[in-house]
């Protein structure tokens, strides 16, 4: 059995916690997010040949009230950026967090989840922003659970392979 640490990063209210809450096991309440700024969850991913236990560090969305604790990123084997499909500004936040994470932990597998895709008022993907990210993008829905399992599996597989998901991966899923 392999264990990996991953982080969930994204702006305030993008639905990081909701995204995983249906799929993870957590013994901590949500108030940790607003107090300590992180909540640990556990997600087991079965990759067929091997099972991976992901320790998911659900980090509090950075906003004007709370800063990201950079130290929480340390030791992460990969991370998931989450943006809100209904708010374009959350993509900018994600880009900034991506930059910070890169600075803190270097090049590790990363995926972008565009959440709340079940809602109608979604913005069009900005090509330039996508280029900046250089990572696979998935459209997810915390409400329906669409693509959530797949996203974690893809990230886990990428981390095991020890390669960047810059090209290929589940990129096709977008």
């Amino acid at each position, binding site marked *: 059995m392999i*264990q990996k640490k991953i982080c969930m990063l994204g702006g305030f209210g993008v639905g990081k916690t909701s995204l995983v809450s249906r799929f993870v*096991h957590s013994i901590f309440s949500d108030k940790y997010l607003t107090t*300590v700024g*992180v909540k*640990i969850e*556990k997600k087991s991913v079965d990759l067929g040949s091997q099972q*991976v236990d992901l*320790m998911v560090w659900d980090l509090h969305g950075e906003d004007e009230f709370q800063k990201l604790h950079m*130290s929480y990123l340390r030791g*992460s084997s990969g991370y998931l950026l989450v943006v809100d499909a209904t708010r374009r500004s959350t993509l900018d936040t994600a880009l900034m967090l991506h930059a910070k994470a890169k600075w803190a932990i270097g090049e590790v597998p990363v995926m972008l989840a565009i959440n709340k895709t079940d809602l109608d008022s979604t913005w069009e993907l900005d090509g330039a922003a996508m280029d900046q990210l250089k990572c696979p993008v998935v459209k997810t829905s915390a409400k329906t659970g669409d693509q959530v399992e797949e996203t974690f599996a893809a990230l886990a597989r990428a981390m095991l392979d020890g390669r960047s998901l810059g090209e290929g991966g589940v990129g096709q899923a977008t």
Partner: protein
Amino acid sequence: MPDAGGEHERKPNGHGHAGADPVDDSLSELRSLLVGPERRDLTALQAHMLDPSVQTRDVSRVLPDAIALRATDPQLSKALAPSIEVAVTASVRKDPRPLADALFPVMGPAIRKAIAHTLASMMDSLNRTVEHSLSWRALQWRWTAFQTGKPFAEIVLLNTLEYRVDQVFLIHAETGLLLQEVWSEPRAVRDTDQVSAMLTAIRDFVRDSFKTSDGDTLDALRVGELSVIVEQGPHALLAGVVRGTAPPSVQATFENALERIHFQLGTELQAYTGDAAPFERARPEMEACLVTQFRPRPQTASYRRWAAAAVVALLAAGVWAFFGVRERQRFNTYLDRLNAEPGIMIASSGRRAGKFFVAGLRDSLARDPSTLVAAAGLTDGSVESRWEPYQSLHPTFVTARARDLLRPPPGVTLEFHDGVLTASGSAPDRWIVESERVAPAIAGVRRFEYGGTNPEVRVKDTIESMSILFPKGRSQIAPDQNDAVRDVAALLVDLNDILRARGHRARVDITGHTDTDGTESENGPLSRARADHLLPLVRTPAGGAIAFTATGIGSDAPISTGTTEDDKRRNRRASFRVTLSDDSAQRSSRP
């Protein structure tokens, strides 16, 4: 080899070019001249390469060195592991003995150690269970367990445990991932992988929040009776969940364990990518950190000492009380006997300064109280006594004192009853009279009585039985009557004494008589003259208790009515009549 090479050489040529051509031949010759030796070498090398037996020999030559060279390479271990496993399995299946023999020196001590450890902990827990199932404390704990609904074992643990390291985590420093975990039941924390991560997060949070200098970090948390101690190493941290209050020595134990783990598994820690398998090897070091320290039991010991002391004290008190009660009972017996003893009056008694005391009155004639002390079972000197002398009115003592004082003649017995001392038996009148006088001086004696005939009455009776005879026709006494006159006179003196002693009085009438001869006118004066004549002879001194009268009554009261001379002689007489006072008369009437 060259011959074989030559054959090889020719064969393709012969095969490839039938119908030889001179140019080809010369070329071939040229070639053999130019590269002949190399071709031979090449051919030989080819043959060598294709021969498996030769290859095997070659590889066998380099294999030990090759393995030695890559001994530390995990890839080699990984590659060899399956084969070795299969080989070992096969070997055991075929004959387990060689492997068992080989492992024996290792397994023997390990098994012994494990058994000893299990037995020791079992004995310890058994001891505690036995101890705690019987004591007063245990009852209290059972009550607490009942009230709180917690298992009894937990209550016992809470109360007897000083501290116990329940759980130890080895956490990868960088990722916060749990590498290894050991625990002793009951496990305080589950979902330890999440807890490890959160612990790491909280440490980061604290360090970020308080902006401490490098190296300073959270090394302890405390929640109620649980605390978490954390020892930080370069690549890993060792966290322990401690129940109770851990002394600094526990932190030192963690520090040592973490150092050894880094020493043993430094490479693995650095290269950690998520596979925790290598850290199984850290378990012994971590298990060494699962320390349990029970509260030292001076409390129990002192409780036992106190209990023992209490038992001894109770026993002593019991013995003391027993002897005390027994002594008290004996003393009471002694008092009862004293009370029953005549002439002893107890005024107060009790216990003073560990000694019994008794105070009261004692007649000098009463029994010596000290002779009763031993009789009651008490030791000499265990009773202090103070006796004031007094005279008891107990009949025994009154009688004794009377006997002492009156000295009754032989045959006379004294009795005392209700204030009256009575003498019985034949006693001289003088003694009786003297006793009557003296006896009231004896305490308790109101009166002395003589049980026999009243002396007054006796004397009176004697006097009255006597007569003094006179010659015929004469008033003088015949000489033969002198003795009789003296007797009467003596009796009258006695009577006078008795009467005087008693304060009584009496009257003695002396009466003269005649016989019937002669005339009454003659006999009357004669009889009177006879009385008168006798009176001075018997009269007691004047002023005595007796008054005398002398009268004559002629022949009217003859003592004998006969007419013979003898009758007449007995009638010529003087008689006496004693009249005692009323009191005396009354007494004379008693039997």
